[in-house]
């Protein structure tokens, strides 16, 4: 199982702040996780599109498409940050 968190506008658009899913293959990378979520259709398709501005973090570090994901990881998706 991995934990996925969603923040800010993404949380609102997707209607959830967190979920746990089982990785179909045990391990994968961020790109394939995005594809998995995109396949849910509707709001997911747009949010997880390859060209979207959505950022991702793996275990609380910013991560790119090729970041590896394994069982037990905490993945987060969120829009560009606007604090300060």
């Amino acid at each position, binding site marked *: 199982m991995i934990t996925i968190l969603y923040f800010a506008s993404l949380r609102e658009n997707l209607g959830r702040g967190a979920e746990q899913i089982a990785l179909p293959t045990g391990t994968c990378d961020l790109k394939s996780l995005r594809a998995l979520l995109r396949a849910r259709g509707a709001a997911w398709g747009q949010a997880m599109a390859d060209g979207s501005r959505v950022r991702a973090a793996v275990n*609380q570090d910013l991560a790119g498409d090729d970041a590896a994901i394994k069982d037990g990881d905490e993945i987060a998706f969120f829009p560009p*940050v606007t*604090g*300060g």
Partner: protein
Amino acid sequence: MPVRIQTEDFEAGREIANLRRDNAAVGAIASFIGVVRDLNDGAKVAGMTLEHYPGMTEKSIAGIIEQAKERWNIHDALVVHRVGELKPLDQIVLVAVTGAHRGEAFSACEFIMDYLKTHAPFWKKEQTPGGSRWVEARESDDVAVQRWQSKA
């Protein structure tokens, strides 16, 4: 602890005094306070909600402070950032940096603020007469942070 995320307000004077207390090697303290304005992108702002990613936010800012310490000869740095409901005139963030000399304290303070704005996971949702809206990231903030990447 150099990073605090909290809903309560802060007193900049007291935070700065604590940061430098009893360290007579400190000759310079640069600091920055960010405040909620009542106007943003042309719309009146009645208030805002600040959301963050507990855990990653603290880790991210601690990492930014470490980078600043590697880059400049500074003594210490503090970041206090508020989350939750804020209204115009409310303080949002304090960054304070102590050092022997002013040039390095100023640079480190501005560096931390520029990276916080572009790398620390916070999101603002504004309440305006037209309803609530998520604040869009600014290109000017990306430009500000790129300055530091082109310098040695």
